[in-house]
């Protein structure tokens, strides 16, 4: 694959301030804290992590559905983070989003025709007749038909609604789609139908996906590269197969080991993590994972680890891999 950068996210931050009344200091929630990654054209890049790790916020911040606190989002050479509202609006025809909850993401008062027409209308694509043609052919592509045009979302099942949500995202033929947990609200048998649809559409329209999910088996199946997030930070990035075969960061290792077995006879050695994810309002010092990490060292409590590079663009942010003691001392002094 010829690799061409489509999107690069640099030092992206999203902090929320929670006022605590007049005289107390505001609490700062670091939902996304200095996130860096690049997405290549045509690939499926995954953000994985547990609830509250900031993966959804990252996705929404890239699309400016949430305003970033700091950092750059460079999409095809344009920094989206500082783009004026109207220019951003017209950029949206190149980047779309699929949402998790197919029940909440479709306006209950609109028919399918209105829902699918809207993107064409706001970006003024095609004339009126062509638009309808386009809507109908899109419906057929996602496995529905013309017959569904004048129905309301509540008349459809969860799987069908998700198809409509996907049709809405793809109808403008964007280059880039952010899919935020697109299949986690669906039943297993419907889930596989929707995954297939997304894979097919990717082939047909040459789409690039940013796939946000907590479901490791889905990620293993359909993505090319994965970034693992923990408490607003990326702790490891690798090619999907590489990550699943050879996870470096202790958190990734624990996460992978926690996935239930596929067959009752399968024996799995588990790394059971202690306790729960700390609050992003009050993250631990140093490496944010250290209170739960089975390999935590002294240095982890005070120094935030920098990414260490392994082969094939595999990086992990962990002190275990900073072997040079000099370096450690250096890091301590200058932190």
């Amino acid at each position, binding site marked *: 694959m010829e690799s061409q950068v489509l999107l690069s996210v640099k030092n992206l931050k999203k902090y929320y301030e929670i006022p605590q009344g007049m005289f107390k200091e505001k609490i700062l929630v670091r939902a996304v804290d200095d996130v860096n990654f690049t997405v290549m054209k045509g690939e499926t890049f995954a953000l994985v992590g547990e609830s509250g790790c900031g993966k959804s916020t990252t996705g929404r911040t890239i699309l400016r*559905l949430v305003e970033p606190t700091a950092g750059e989002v460079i999409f095809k050479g344009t920094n989206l983070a500082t783009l004026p509202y109207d220019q951003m*609006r017209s950029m949206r025809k190149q980047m779309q*989003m699929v*949402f998790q909850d197919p029940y909440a*993401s*479709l*306006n209950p008062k609109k028919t399918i025709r209105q829902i699918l027409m809207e993107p064409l209308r706001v970006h003024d694509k095609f004339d009126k007749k062509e638009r309808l043609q386009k809507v109908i052919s899109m419906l057929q592509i996602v496995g*529905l038909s013309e017959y569904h045009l004048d129905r309301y979302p509540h008349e459809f099942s969860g799987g069908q609604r998700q198809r409509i949500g996907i049709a809405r995202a793809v109808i403008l033929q964007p280059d880039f789609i952010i899919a935020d947990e697109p299949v986690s609200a669906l039943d297993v048998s419907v889930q596989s139908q929707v995954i*297939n*649809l997304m894979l097919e559409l990717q082939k047909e329209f040459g789409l690039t996906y940013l796939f946000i999910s907590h479901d490791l088996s889905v990620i293993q199946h359909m993505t090319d590269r994965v970034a693992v997030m923990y408490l607003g930070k990326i702790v490891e990035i690798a090619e999907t197969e590489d990550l699943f075969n050879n996870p470096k960061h202790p958190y990734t290792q624990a996460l992978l080991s926690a996935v239930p077995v596929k067959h009752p006879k399968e024996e799995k050695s588990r790394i059971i993590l202690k306790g729960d994810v700390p609050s992003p309002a009050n993250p631990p010092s140093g490496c944010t994972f250290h209170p739960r990490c089975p390999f935590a060292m002294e240095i982890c409590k005070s120094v935030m680890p920098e990414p260490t590079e392994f082969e094939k663009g595999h990086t992990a942010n962990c002190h275990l891999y900073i072997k040079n003691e000099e370096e450690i001392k250096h890091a301590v002094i200058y932190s």
Partner: protein
Amino acid sequence: MTVNFPKVPHAANTQPLKSKKQSAVAAFFSNLMRSWTGMLGFLIIVLLLFISIFGQWIVPYDPLLADFGKKLLPPMTDGHLLGTDQLGRDIFSRIILGARISVIIGVTTVLIAGTFGTIVGIISGYFRGWIDVILMRIVDVQLSFPFILLVLVINAIIGTGLRNIIISLAIGGWVIFARVIRSEVLALREKEFIIASVATGVSRIGILFKHILPNLFTPIIILSSLQIGTYIIAEASVSFLGFGVQPPEPAWGNMLNEGKDYIFSSWWLITFPGIAIMFTALGVNLFGDWLRDTLDPELKGE
């Protein structure tokens, strides 16, 4: 596994969907039939509208015509169904004509207060920021004033009469709309389908008109129907205190006012207008409650 499945392409879910939607009117009535309180409210409202439109043709006597020879007749005498008042005017006719005043005041006030309050609520809820802070503080200040007192004060300043009572009621009433609609807008703003439209590239104004407004329709209807009852009662109270619609024009409130001196000798002077007010308020509220239960998706199962 022993057997192999043939590969099936991702399938069209062509399961039969619900048959063509019932027409809205049929659905409305079949729903109404299920609730006797809603039905009762609806019937009272229909009756009220009917007499306020056709009142002048069904009154047996001229409601303004004084006949001192026939004053203070008890009900069911001399062809006066509900008796006559201290000037000998037919009470039944006056109540029927008074209905029109009540309906005009209720409906017009809701239109004015509702429109203004909704606009303020939308601006406040959708744009937030300093404009929201200012508007909501105004609302807070006004809400700390008793409604009736405020209406009376405004009336005292701008004068009495039908037009002025509507103005004062509307000034007193818009805050409720502003408050409720603002909170609806705030909730809607965060809904995923709104965020989805932003992601599609719809402009701010487009979001407001195409997505937020249609979803405000239901709460506006519900709130309006409930507020009409409040305004009718408020008008009666204000008229009773002598500030509202002025005699000899028959309004239920001023009928009560005029009749209060005769309360021990001629009970019918205040009893029948009182019952009229009660039934109207009851009918409007019953219907409003039913509307809320029917239209509110929180209460209605998916």
